[in-house]
C-alpha cells in the first residue's frame, strides 16, 4: 500500500486505515458483547465503550507492546487497541477456563503482561497509581517506555488522581493521563459531580501540560497522544489529555437510563467517531465505501468467531478456584 501523507492531519494512509480498523474492532466487539449479554449468555455486568472508540484507538496508536496502560471498568476498547487478544477477552467475559484469567475476573479485569496491559480496574481511579508505578519502572529502566492511564470524568472526583498528578509531576515520570470525559459518573451528570468540569485544568495546577481534544475525532486524539508520548519518551515528564466523548450506552448494559434525555442520543450519533473517520477515509485517503465494507465484514467475522470459540470453551473449573491466590512461579 502506498503511504500517502496528508498534510492536514499528518496521518498517512496506512495509519488512517489502522485507526479505522482499531475503532471498528472495538465497536464490533462491544456490539457483540452487548448482544451476548442481552441474550443472557454473559454473567454479571458489562460496561460498553460504544461511542468512545476514537480515544482508545488514537491514544494507543503510538504505543509499543512494551509500554504500559491501565484502564477502567469500561476498558474493553483500550485493551483491544493495546493488543489484547480478543479470544481470551471473550473467554473471560463468558467466565471460561480459556479466558484471560481462567474466568476469575470477568469483564472489568483484563490484564496481559505480554502487551503491557497492567489491568482494567473495577475501582474508579484504582488503576491510576499503578500506571504511575509503571512509569516509575520505565524511568528507572531508562528504555524510553511510557505508561498511560485511562480514566473517566468520574475519577476526576477521586482523591487518588490528585495524589498521582502530584507525584508524576514531582518525579517527572513518563506518563500520559487520559481522561475520557463522557459527561457521566455512572448515572450522575457532570453538572452534579464536578465543581469544575474543565478536567484538564486540574492537571495544569500541578504544572502538567494538559490539552482538551475532541475525543470523537481520532486524528485529534492521535495528535495529542503523539505529542504526549514523545514528551514522555524524551524524559520530559507527564502530560494530560482530556478527551471529550460520548457514552452511547448506559453505565452498564441493562441500565434504563432514566436520567438521560432522548435528544442526547441523537446528538451523539451525529458525533459518531466511526462515521466521521469513514468520511475522512473516503474523502481524503481514496478509499471507497466497498473497501471499508470489506474491512467491516472481516472484522465482524473475526469478532463473531472469537465469541463462538469463547462460548465453546470449557467452563471455569471450580476445582482450581484457589489457584493463583499467591504467585506460583518464582520470577
Amino acid at each position, binding site marked *: 500500500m502506498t503511504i500517502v501523507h496528508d498534510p492536514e492531519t499528518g496521518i498517512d494512509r496506512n495509519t488512517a486505515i489502522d485507526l479505522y480498523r482499531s475503532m471498528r474492532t472495538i465497536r464490533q466487539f462491544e456490539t457483540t458483547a452487548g448482544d451476548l449479554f442481552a441474550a443472557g449468555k454473559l454473567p454479571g455486568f458489562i460496561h460498553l465503550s460504544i461511542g468512545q472508540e476514537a480515544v482508545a484507538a488514537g491514544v494507543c496508536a503510538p504505543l509499543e507492546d512494551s509500554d*504500559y496502560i*491501565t484502564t477502567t471498568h469500561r476498558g474493553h476498547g483500550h485493551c483491544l487497541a493495546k493488543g489484547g487478544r480478543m479470544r481470551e477477552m471473550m473467554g473471560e467475559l463468558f467466565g471460561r477456563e480459556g479466558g*484471560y*484469567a*481462567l474466568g*476469575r*475476573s470477568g469483564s472489568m*479485569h483484563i*490484564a*496481559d*503482561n505480554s502487551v503491557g496491559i*497492567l*489491568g482494567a*480496574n*473495577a*475501582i474508579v481511579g*484504582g488503576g*491510576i*497509581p*499503578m*500506571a*504511575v*508505578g*509503571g*512509569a*516509575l*519502572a*520505565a524511568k*528507572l*529502566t531508562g528504555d524510553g517506555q511510557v*505508561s498511560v492511564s485511562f480514566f473517566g470524568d468520574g475519577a476526576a472526583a477521586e*482523591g*487518588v488522581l490528585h*495524589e*498521582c498528578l*502530584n*507525584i508524576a509531576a*514531582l*518525579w517527572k515520570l513518563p506518563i500520559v493521563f487520559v481522561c475520557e470525559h463522557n459527561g457521566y459518573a455512572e448515572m450522575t451528570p457532570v453538572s452534579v459531580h464536578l465543581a469544575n468540569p474543565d478536567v484538564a485544568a486540574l492537571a495544569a495546577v500541578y504544572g502538567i501540560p494538559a490539552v482538551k481534544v475532541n475525543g470523537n475525532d481520532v486524528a485529534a486524539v492521535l495528535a495529542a497522544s503523539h505529542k504526549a508520548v514523545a514528551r514522555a519518551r524524551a524524559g520530559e515528564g507527564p502530560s494530560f489529555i482530556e478527551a471529550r466523548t460520548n457514552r452511547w450506552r448506559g453505565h452498564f448494559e441493562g441500565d434504563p437510563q432514566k436520567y438521560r434525555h432522548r435528544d442526547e442520543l441523537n446528538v451523539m450519533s451525529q458525533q459518531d467517531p466511526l462515521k466521521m473517520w469513514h468520511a475522512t477515509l473516503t474523502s481524503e485517503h481514496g478509499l471507497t465505501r466497498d473497501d471499508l465494507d470489506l474491512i467491516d465484514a472481516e472484522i465482524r467475522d473475526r469478532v463473531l468467531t472469537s465469541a463462538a470459540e469463547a462460548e465453546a470453551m470449557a467452563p471455569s473449573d471450580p476445582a482450581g478456584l484457589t*489457584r*493463583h*491466590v*499467591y*504467585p*506460583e*512461579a*518464582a*520470577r
Partner: protein
Amino acid sequence: MTALKYWQAINRALHEEMARDDRVLLIGEDVAEPGGPFGASKGLLEAFGAERVRDSPISEAAIVGTALGAAMAGYRPIVEVMFLDFVTVAMDQVVNQAAKVSYMSAGNFAAPMVIRSICASGRRTGPQHSQNLEAWLAHVPGLKVVWGSTPADARGLLKAAIRDDGPVYVIESLAEWSTRGEVPDDDEIVPIGSAAVRREGDDLTLVTWGGAAPRAATAVEQMEDVGVELIDLRTISPWDRDTVLESVRKTGRLLVVHDAVVEFGVGAEIAATVAAECFDELRAPVRRLGAPYAPAPFAPQLEAAYLPQPEDIASAVLETVKTVRKAS
C-alpha cells in the same frame, strides 16, 4: 551474631537486600533524606541513591499503588506506610489491587512488593496511631502478613518479605524499637509461615505475636510451676497451623494473647481452628486475651489497662490450667 537494636536490625535488612538486588526500591514518607521517621532507613539514600530511595508526599494510596505498578513492571519495591493506622487511607490499593493481582490475572502478573508499617501500640500515641489492625490485613486472600517481635525476626522476616513474589505486609513494633537482641551475621531469613517456639512446656500452649509477645514472654518467665509452651506466631497470614496444632495436641490447653481487640480478631481464627482440629485433646476451653472492644486510648494508665500486661497474661494462664473438666 551481633547485638542490634530492633530498628537497627530492620535497617540492616534494608541495606542487605538493596545491595543484593538492585530491583529493590524504597518509597515512603520521610524515608530518604530524613532516614526514616525513627531511623530505620538511615544511610540508604547515601548508599543506593535517590532513584531507588525516594521521599514521597503524604499520599498513602498513591505510593502503595505506585509500588504495585513498579512491582508489576519488574521491580521489587518496599513502600513505607508510616503508621499502621495510615493504611486505612490506602486500603483500595492494598486490598482491591495488590492482594488480587496474581489471582485476577491468573498468574500472568505478580506483585513482589513489601508494605512496611510501624504499630505504635504501647507508646502513648492515641487512637489513630496505635491500632493493631493485623486482622484486617490477614482477612484478605493474597496478602501475607508478618510481624517480628525480636530484632532477629524483624530482620529475617523483612528479608523474606522482600524476596517473596507476592505482596507482604510487614508490621514493626515501635514499642520494641530500642530493644536489643542477637542478630545472625549470615544471610539468614526467617521463612514466612513459620512460628517460633520460644519455650517448651506440657501444660498450656500460649500463642502470641507482635507487641504482645514480649509481655507474654515476661509473664511466662516468672512461672516456674506451670509448663507453658510459648509460641510466637511471627507470620499472621498464612499462620503456622501445624506448629500450633501439634503443641495443643500435647498440652490440651490454648491461650491466645494479642494486643488487638478480642472481637473478630486473629485469635478467633486460631481458637476456631484448634477447637475443630483438637476437640478430643482439649482439656480446657480455648481462651483469648486481648484489648477490650474500644479504640486504643492515649493516657498511660488507660493504655496500660487496655493492653494485656504480664500479670493479666499470668492470671489467664493459671486460670486456664486450673480448669477441671467435669465428667460427662
